[in-house]
């Protein structure tokens, strides 16, 4: 017996109050002192007793009547499984959401999940309709609202665990859509999942329609020991003209016991090294392998642990290529001093990520300079490169057009001003500013950089406190600049004059620096910020992106232009014609994707390593009730009931069907009527008794 509104039962306690008061008062008030009870005792005691009990019955009758009425208000009902008769009373629309994220591959979870799904399908009657949704990061509707149990079963049989992560919201959204379109009276959602906490974040608009029963079926058990490779980092060092790479992998233990595992490093499919590591409970450890020589592009590497219950996160793939230097061409004027670009070239000679391949040439060679040919000669064929015009006369005519094309194709152009160059906006309309006469700040004390746009990639490095200070730099001379409307000022001097201006042109950008980058017009090259500043500026201009060693399932790549074939880790092939516009591919498998030429015969195809999302390897469960409460707006306390709720009605429905309150109310009223009659009858002899007293 349960109650729909049990708070009413508090009224029962109030019922006891008058009885208690009555009893207490009765005892306290009427005590009569009498000399001797000798004669009273001689009168048979029974008659006195019986009379009292008689009134107790009346009291009990009243109490029971009131209690019945109060219980009727509490809306009682009997919890019981719905009979087959009732099951047919309303057709159901059931949406089965089956989690197929790779954590479901843990031990026998997937088999149990499918068994649970089969059981849910088994509850469908002939009138009911069912939908099957498999979900990971996204949700796929496998079978849509059908009464054909066979197709649901078939859909279930073809389902496989994917390398995806768990995300509940898309699946619930999909269920929401299906249920909204349904005309059937009873609508239910069954979620079969291991309910990882990582997959659930509460959003307010995620709410199932009113009356929908959400049944979480949790697959999985408390102890989920799992060891995973969660990350890998590389340290590159040049060694005899080649690179040596030290691989460091992070191994995390999600279990409650320490684990000793043997981590293996595979390069191009061969086991290279093995390292033993002990990982503490709920902790992670780093494994550092001895460095290996990276001598060819698209080298495939894998850090692998011995397989455990959850095998997908036991391997982490990566693809490495030798670093490619960014080509930089510096053009300086004929009459410039020999060491005019000393600081710049020395600064760019340092560094590995990226390394810069710097060529210095005279401005006189600029008209004959062929960018494509120069790039082909350099080591990096994939980098756009950057050109620096160091205080030279900005070319005009065809050369200017060529520079513009270079920039539009993704190249970067840095224009440094100075005392000698001529910068005519009319001749080179891609310049970001009209350059005016030099401003001499020597006589008034040096100027400084007043405003720096730290949100720009060039200055982002210096954003944090104590990570580089431009305010100490003194600027003695700089050019007056008038900014063109579509240019962006990245930095200004303290008098408001622009110092660094960027203008995007096509895929590339032109940057104009109002002063020089030697210690002639300023002392910036003597400051510690000079080196990172120049590195960031040139890398930004060249559009340099550090190469990603691996990607995560669910990310997309763009296949480079040309006739290409994409080979997936499982061996599937997709061909891309040169004319094909949509070249974006979603990475859905774990392993190495290869992008080959049409012929497919090149020795080193481009390789993309794809890993599973390590957040899924954290098996910490979520309390399904929390999710149910958030989605349906009502928590269900009885878990056993909720698991079986697919076969049951909600308490409200049960109560409405049983309608016990009517009987209770009628019984209460009948008792009250009986009480009235009884008390009338009881009070009659009392009344006549009163008449007797004076006569006696």
């Amino acid at each position, binding site marked *: 017996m349960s109650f729909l509104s049990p708070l009413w039962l508090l009224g029962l306690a109030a019922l006891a109050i008058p009885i208690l008061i009555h009893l207490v008062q009765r*005892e306290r008030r*009427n*005590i*009569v*002192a*009498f*000399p*001797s*009870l*000798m*004669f*009273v*005792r*001689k*009168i048979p*005691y029974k*008659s*006195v007793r019986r*009379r*009292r009990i008689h009134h107790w019955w009346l009291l009990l009758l009243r109490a029971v009547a009131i209690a019945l009425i109060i219980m009727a208000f509490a809306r009682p009902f009997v919890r019981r499984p719905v009979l087959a008769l009732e099951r047919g009373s309303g057709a159901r629309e059931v949406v089965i959401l089956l989690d197929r994220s790779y954590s479901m591959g843990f031990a026998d979870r997937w088999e149990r999940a499918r068994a649970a799904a089969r059981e849910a399908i088994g509850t469908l009657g002939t009138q009911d309709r069912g939908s099957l949704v498999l979900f990971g990061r996204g949700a796929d509707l496998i079978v849509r609202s059908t009464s054909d149990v066979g197709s649901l079963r078939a859909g279930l049989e073809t389902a496989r665990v994917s390398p995806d992560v768990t995300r509940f919201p898309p699946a619930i959204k999909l269920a929401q859509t299906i249920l909204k379109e349904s005309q059937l009276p009873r609508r239910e959602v069954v979620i079969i999942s291991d309910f990882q906490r990582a997959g659930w974040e509460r959003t307010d608009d995620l709410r199932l329609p009113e009356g929908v029963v959400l049944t979480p079926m949790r697959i999985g058990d408390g102890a989920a020991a799992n060891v995973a490779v969660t990350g890998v980092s590389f340290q590159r060092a040049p060694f005899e003209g080649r690179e040596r790479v030290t691989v460091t992998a992070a191994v995390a233990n999600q279990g409650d016991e320490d684990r000793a595992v043997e981590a293996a490093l595979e390069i191009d499919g061969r086991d290279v090294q093995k390292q033993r590591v002990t990982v503490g409970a709920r902790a992670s450890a780093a494994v550092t392998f001895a460095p290996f020589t990276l001598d060819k592009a698209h080298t495939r590497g894998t850090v692998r642990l011995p397989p455990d219950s959850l095998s997908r996160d036991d391997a982490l793939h990566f693809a490495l290529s030798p670093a490619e230097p960014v080509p930089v061409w510096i053009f300086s004027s004929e009459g410039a001093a020999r060491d005019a670009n000393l600081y710049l070239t020395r600064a760019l000679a340092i560094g590995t990520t990226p390394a810069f391949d710097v060529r210095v040439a005279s401005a006189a060679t600029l008209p004959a300079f062929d960018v494509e040919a120069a790039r082909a000669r350099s080591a990096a064929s994939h980098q756009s490169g950057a050109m620096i015009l160091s205080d030279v006369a900005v070319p005009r005519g065809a050369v200017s057009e060529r520079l513009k094309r270079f920039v539009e194709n993704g190249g970067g152009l840095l224009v440094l001003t100075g005392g000698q160059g001529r910068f005519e906006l009319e001749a080179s309309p891609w310049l970001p500013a009209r350059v005016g006469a030099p401003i001499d700040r020597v006589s008034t004390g040096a100027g400084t950089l007043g405003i720096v746009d730290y949100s720009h990639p060039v200055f982002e490095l210096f954003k944090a406190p104590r990570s580089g200070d431009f305010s100490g730099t003194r600027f003695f001379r700089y050019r007056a600049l008038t900014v063109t409307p579509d240019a962006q000022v990245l930095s200004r001097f303290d008098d408001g004059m622009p110092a660094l201006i960027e203008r995007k042109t096509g895929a590339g950008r032109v940057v104009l620096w109002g002063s020089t980058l030697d210690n002639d017009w300023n002392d910036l090259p003597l400051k510690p910020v000079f080196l990172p500043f120049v590195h960031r500026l040139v890398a930004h201009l060249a559009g340099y992106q550090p190469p990603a060693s691996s990607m995560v399932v669910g990310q997309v790549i763009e296949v480079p232009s040309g006739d290409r074939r994409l080979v997936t880790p499982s061996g599937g092939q997709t061909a891309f014609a040169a004319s094909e516009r949509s070249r974006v591919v979603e990475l859905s498998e774990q392993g190495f994707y290869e992008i080959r030429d049409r012929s497919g015969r090149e020795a080193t195809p481009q390789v993309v390593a794809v890993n599973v999302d390590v957040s899924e390897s954290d098996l910490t469960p979520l309390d399904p009730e929390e999710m149910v409460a958030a989605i349906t707006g009502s928590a269900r306390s009885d878990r056993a009931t909720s698991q079986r709720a697919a076969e049951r009605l909600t308490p409200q429905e049960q109560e409405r069907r049983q309608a016990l309150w009517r009987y209770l109310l009628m019984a209460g009223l009948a008792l009250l009527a009986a009480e009235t009659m009884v008390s009338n009858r009881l009070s009659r002899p*009392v009344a006549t*008794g*009163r008449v*007797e*007293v004076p006569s*006696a």
Partner: protein
Amino acid sequence: MDPIERHNPVPGARFVDPRVLAKVGSLELLARTVVDGFINGLHKAPYLGVSLDFAEHRGYTPGDDIRLIDWKVYGRTDRYYIKQFEADTNANFSVLLDVSRSMDFASHGLSKLDYSKFLAACLTYLAHRQRDRVGLVTFDREVVDRIPVSAKHFEVVLHALDRAKAGRPGHLLTALRALAEHFGRRGILVLISDLYEEPEAILDAVKPLRFRGNDLIVFHVLDPAELEFPFEEPSAFEDLESGDRVPVVPRALRAEYRQLVQQHIATLTAKFSEHRVDYALFDTGKPLDHALFSYLGTRQRLSRVR
């Protein structure tokens, strides 16, 4: 008229109610049996003799024995005085007053104990006036206070009456058995009690007093509430003596109760008359003077008949 009325020197004197005496003053309490003592014309005395207990001097009147003239007093005063001795005049008159807890009950102003004190005081006054020797015994389950009989003890008796308080539960049998041995000389014994015992037990207790040849008068004092049981509300009734509580619905058992009380009184009347014990019921709701007058009147009539 009366010295007691005027100075009121004794605390217990208030129990000697003039209104009662006004009514009963003309009557005499005579021993129906032969009592010890020299009572000139009042009580039948077993002995002719003179006591050595000096009582008082009295003026000589012709016919007095000239041997009784106190010549020493004549020598001082030149008048004839008769030297009187206590034994001359008296019977032993003792009041046995029950001061058990149950006596302390009052449904209206006067409790049974107070009523009994009035009764005892008035009788003692009567006896004292006719020169009987007076004494008092108060008891509950044992003797509480005992004033030996003496002609001079009237005021002592009044004092004792004044301080008598109802305290403990009573038990007639044990108390009276202890008393019986004190009444060696025959006299008048007045037992005042509410007699909450079974009739047989009461007789068992009283008989020893009677056997010594005493004239025993039993005054049964009851409150009107005890006779009528006029209670209305169902209540817990508490026994004053035992403290027991019994839930009672008075309406239901009033008739039976009255019947039982009347039966008890009837039984007592019958049993006492069998044993030549004088028995009278006093209802504290009725005026004492009226009750006492009717009792003494009846007793006198009966004496004359006998």
